[in-house]
């Protein structure tokens, strides 16, 4: 049953990739059907799970022994528990919506079948990632989503920028993957097992320093996939891919695999030194603030959302570092809803604007694209933290835990929330309100010339409406008012309870309504500020070049890697070529030269061989006679 979850989309991808052009006509329907079937199966398993008692909910499926060499045992097993089912529903649910949307969005693309094959491949890999029962199998899914992400970012392979962006994503992810492989090696050496069960049992008795190293290595891995500082830059270039890909992979699902990994390894974090969670929290807060400041000055409709994603992922890391695993998962779910909605909305805008992505050439679109505008506005209210939309509840939950953990990081979180409200309002005003500016630069459009943006087809609007609905009601999963309303917390309790920070007795918990109020005020200030600047024009917009260029991170990284970095790499290459290879080649040359000298003895004259034999025989005989035979 569990294997079928992964098997269905994998089958879809296989049929589409092997079937070739013959499947062009119906390939996209097959892909949607496979994704939807996987979702239905997931929902069925979920309902089955709800019916069981808490202890029986966790089920495993051992498929076969994958690697079995002495003490080195790796099973190929799947593991479905409360945490993975949440991800399964999210991946297949949001995934199916985005599949449906893509039918419309990719309608005119000649490579639509290939696109759907990759989407299915991604869904299968992501499901393997969340359903694996050991770190090694998780690694397979981890690389699988990396591959699918690479293929989809560089989907428009004829565009050099898309090809480069794909490579960049792959290489930056590889830096993070080093962390995961290091962690797996460390687990093997110290615990002798890589199953979640085995590692969880072993960390309790293991030495704290080793456990901390494993935790930090896994943090590096999570930073790579979840685009946390300093590995965040690939996600921005990933916007080169088709917009549904940005929604599915680079906003809703794949980038949250870092959050998943951290929650899975919560016993490791729990057993490591105090500073490990603090590092996670600081990384998260720094990333959240950094990305939020940059988003303020972006003019590309997708880049704003990309930076916003990085910022929100930083929020989730901040939550995990503060011990708020449930809040992190909660925010991940609501974020998946509203960010997928915003991305799909922006895709609808791009589609309607004939592939124009610059927000300075939009404006007043709400009249021409009413459904897109309304759903986008719902997404905006959700991300800005306006009650009672989903994002408000999850963001507030995180801020509550952060306040209990560290006041300074709480202030950083609040500033980020303010900036989030500000830049999202800016985006909504630039795109949907104000004056229509799409014909100002008509000449740039070439063939298009005068044109009027149009609303997208129904098949694209349907997912928007569903996601908008979820963005409104998603907060009901975990309402802060009474303990009874913490549905998500109760559901995830068997997995997170032990590592979760206990804030029940802190000042923050008793005064949570004050913190709620502060959050609302901050969001309102952000929204009003953006209105004053962009709608009323009362103040001049602050969009310095340094922010537009993302604090020159890419330029700086290029300089660092290209200058001292390249020198270092060249030095290492020189050592490899001259010292390591020199030793190897030197040995070979020495042996060859000796051989060259010695083989001259082989003259080819039979009589000289006979003479040598005779001489040898006489010498041996003389030796025996001299010493005596016995």
């Amino acid at each position, binding site marked *: 049953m569990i294997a079928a979850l992964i098997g269905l989309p994998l089958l879809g991808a296989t049929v589409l990739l092997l079937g070739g052009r013959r499947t062009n006509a119906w390939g996209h329907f097959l892909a949607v059907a496979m994704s939807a079937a996987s979702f239905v199966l997931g929902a069925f398993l979920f309902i089955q799970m709800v019916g069981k008692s808490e202890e029986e909910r966790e089920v495993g499926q051992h498929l076969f022994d994958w690697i079995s060499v002495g003490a080195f045992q790796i099973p190929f097993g799947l593991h479905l528990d409360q945490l993975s089912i949440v991800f399964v529903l999210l991946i297949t649910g949001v995934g199916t919506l985005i599949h449906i949307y893509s039918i419309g969005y990719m309608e005119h693309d000649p490579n639509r079948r290939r696109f759907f094959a990759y989407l299915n491949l991604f869904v299968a890999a992501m499901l393997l990632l969340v359903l694996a029962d050991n770190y090694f199998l998780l690694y397979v899914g981890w690389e699988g989503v990396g591959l699918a992400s690479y293929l989809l970012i560089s989907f428009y392979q004829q565009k050099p920028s898309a090809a480069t962006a794909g490579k960049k994503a792959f290489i930056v992810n590889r830096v993070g993957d080093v962390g995961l492989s290091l962690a797996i090696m460390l687990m093997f050496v110290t615990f002798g097992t890589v199953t979640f069960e085995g590692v969880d049992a072993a960390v309790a008795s293991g030495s704290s320093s080793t456990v901390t190293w494993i935790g930090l290595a896994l943090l590096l891995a999570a930073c790579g996939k979840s685009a946390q500082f300093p590995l965040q830059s690939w996600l921005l270039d990933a916007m080169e891919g088709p917009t549904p890909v940005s929604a599915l992979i680079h906003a809703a699902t794949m980038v949250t695999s870092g959050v998943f990994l951290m929650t899975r390894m919560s016993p490791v974090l729990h057993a490591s030194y105090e500073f490990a969670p603090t590092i996670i929290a600081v990384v998260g807060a720094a990333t959240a603030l950094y990305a939020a400041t940059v988003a303020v000055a972006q003019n590309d409709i997708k880049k704003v959302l990309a930076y916003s994603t990085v910022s929100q992922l930083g929020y989730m890391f901040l939550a995990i570092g503060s011990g708020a695993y449930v809040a992190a998962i909660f925010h991940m779910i609501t974020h998946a809803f509203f960010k997928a909605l915003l991305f799909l909305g922006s895709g609808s805008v791009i589609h309607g604007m004939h592939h124009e992505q610059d927000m300075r050439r939009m404006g007043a679109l709400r009249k021409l694209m009413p459904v897109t505008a309304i759903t986008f506005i719902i997404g905006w209210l959700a991300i800005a933290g306006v009650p009672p939309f989903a994002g408000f509840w999850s963001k507030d939950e995180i801020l509550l835990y952060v306040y209990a953990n560290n006041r300074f990081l709480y202030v950083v979180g609040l500033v980020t929330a303010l900036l989030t409200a500000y830049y999202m309002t800016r985006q909504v005003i630039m795109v949907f309100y104000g004056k229509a500016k799409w014909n100002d630069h008509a000449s740039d459009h070439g063939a298009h010339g005068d044109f009027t943006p149009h609303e997208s087809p129904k098949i694209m609007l349907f997912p928007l409406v569903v996601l908008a609905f979820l963005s409104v009601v998603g907060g009901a999963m975990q309402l802060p008012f009474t303990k009874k309303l913490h549905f998500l917390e109760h559901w995830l309790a068997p997995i997170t309870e032990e590592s979760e920070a206990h804030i029940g007795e802190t000042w923050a918990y008793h005064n949570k309504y004050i913190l709620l109020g502060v959050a609302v005020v901050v969001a309102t200030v952000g929204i009003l500020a953006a209105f004053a600047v962009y709608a009323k024009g009362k103040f001049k917009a602050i969009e310095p070049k340094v922010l537009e260029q993302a604090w020159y991170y890419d330029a700086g990284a290029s300089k660092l890697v290209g200058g001292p970095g390249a020198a270092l790499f060249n030095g290492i290459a020189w050592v490899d070529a001259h010292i390591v290879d020199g030793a190897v080649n030197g040995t070979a040359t020495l042996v060859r030269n000796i051989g060259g000298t010695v083989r001259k003895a082989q003259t*080819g004259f039979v*009589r000289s061989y006979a003479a040598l034999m005779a001489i040898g025989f006489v010498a041996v005989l003389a030796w025996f006679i001299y010493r005596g035979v016995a």
Partner: protein
Amino acid sequence: MNPNNYLILAAILFTIGVYGVLVRRNAIIVFMSVELMLNAANLAFVAAARNTGTLDGLVVAFFVMVVAAAEVVVGLAIIVTIFRTRRSASIDEASLMKY
């Protein structure tokens, strides 16, 4: 008769064989010298068997004869083939199998 005399004769025959192998170039002569060495060894075996009154030496001598017969067949065949291709039976000229 003193058994040492047989051994001395065998040693002389063997040395003549070795000398023949080392100094002659004609493959046929070299071959005959090898035969001489083998028969010198045979003589020593038979003499030793006679001296100790056992059959072991005789058995070995018969073995050597059989092996020598087989070796002659193969060896002569090779020499004939070499002669056909090179029009010469000089073993110094057939020296291509070297470094």
